[in-house]
């Protein structure tokens, strides 16, 4: 009885250790993935009236006020890897009610303000500032 109990505890311990090692490995690789690949991932490209307005990384939380002229404004928010239009001055509000986008090729269109937000995969990171 006593021997058996000890055996079973030992077995438990070994399983626990395997389990912990596995968890740690997953956590470490997860962290490495976040560190190494966070910049190289997807980006969203914003165009206004067909012209490129800006390119933003989906791996960073960003709030961008897109001024489209005549006092019109679309506020693009990137949070937790997804992009959505938080507010807009357009009369229909279709862009604001659009679900958050994150898959390659998905887009949000604001026809009245001529704003198109598209998820793209680019080789180069989007710069913080462009001159």
């Amino acid at each position: 009885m006593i021997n058996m109990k000890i055996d079973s505890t030992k077995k438990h311990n070994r399983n626990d250790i395997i389990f912990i090692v596995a968890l740690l490995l997953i956590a470490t690789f997860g962290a490495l993935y976040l560190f190494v690949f966070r910049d190289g991932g997807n980006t969203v490209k914003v165009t206004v009236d067909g012209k490129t307005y800006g390119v933003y990384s989906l791996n960073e939380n960003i709030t961008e006020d897109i001024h489209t002229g005549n006092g019109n404004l679309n506020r693009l928010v990137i949070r937790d890897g997804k992009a959505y239009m938080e507010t807009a001055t357009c009369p229909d509000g279709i862009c604001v009610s659009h679900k958050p986008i994150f898959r390659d090729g998905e887009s949000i269109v604001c026809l009245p303000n001529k704003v198109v937000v598209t998820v793209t995969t680019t080789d180069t990171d989007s710069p913080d500032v462009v001159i």
Partner: protein
Amino acid sequence: MKQRFLSIALALCLFVCGGACSSQEKTKYNTYSMDYFDTVITITGYEKSQGDFDKQSKEILDMFEDYHRLYSIYHRFDGLNNMCTVNQLTDGVHPTVKVDKAIIDMLLFAKKMHTVTNGKLNVAMGSVLSLWHDYRTVGKDNPQNASLPPMDKLQEAAKHTDISKMVIDEENSTVTLTDPLMKLDVGAIAKGYAVEQVALALEKKGVTGYVLNVGGNVRTVGSKPDGSDWSVGIENPDGSDYIAYLNVSDMSVVTSGSYQRYYYVDGKPYHHIIQPETLMPAQNGYLSVSVVCKDSGMGDALSTALFCLSKQDGLALINSIAGAEAMWVAEDGTKSYSSGWNKYVKK
């Protein structure tokens, strides 16, 4: 026993993950203003909330408004002596004008830059530059009637560009232009100088994680919250690609290009950077010149001066200034660099 192990393992997971995700605590915010310096001001900053960012960016824009009002050569403001007031004539002479210290300091800096750039950056060129400004404005509004300022008018104006006729009395905080036909044009220096002053004020307050971009004068304040450098893309004039991709913190990047402001006469483009010797748009074979250095005012002055210098003379100038580097983009797209430029290029 098992539960304890599990909780330790979970805690470790959270710890490792937390370390990886901690830099996402702050959000990157952007805002724009088109109200000052006749250009677009972009403010980028990392803050914990929209409210924090709005507060900080308003403070920044308030500072820019003050500098804009003081340095404007086109707009007058009630009860304020600014650069317009310095340029005005009363009974045929420029009166001695008492001005804010921010004007005195900027003009002293301009004088210093005149010496450093061997006269290529000359704020006393106002009479010449205002001729170009007037003809460009007419030509842009009415392309059919676009013409060049007549050379005899330009040469007459060029007789009144002696910067020693700009007399600054620091003690009494006054400026006097002793040549009645002379005018100051601070367009090639005031923007960059103002950006630097705003950045210095932010640094003094301990602000980090901000980038100011005032019509192509980029100044980074601190690094990003995770300690990494800012990436600055210098765009191709046609917007197709980046001609350079830099990594900088606490530095300025300024580009002067023939594509930034120009007008057409008989189908030929004439840009806004005027060569002091020829009084015509500088033709040294460049599409643009970019400068990286600490001081944004210095960067502004240097990029203009380099645009007016041959490659050889420009290289000598940039090498004479510690911590400044430059990139020249020729009209055919060929790029050349000063020796230390590469250390700012994103690897």
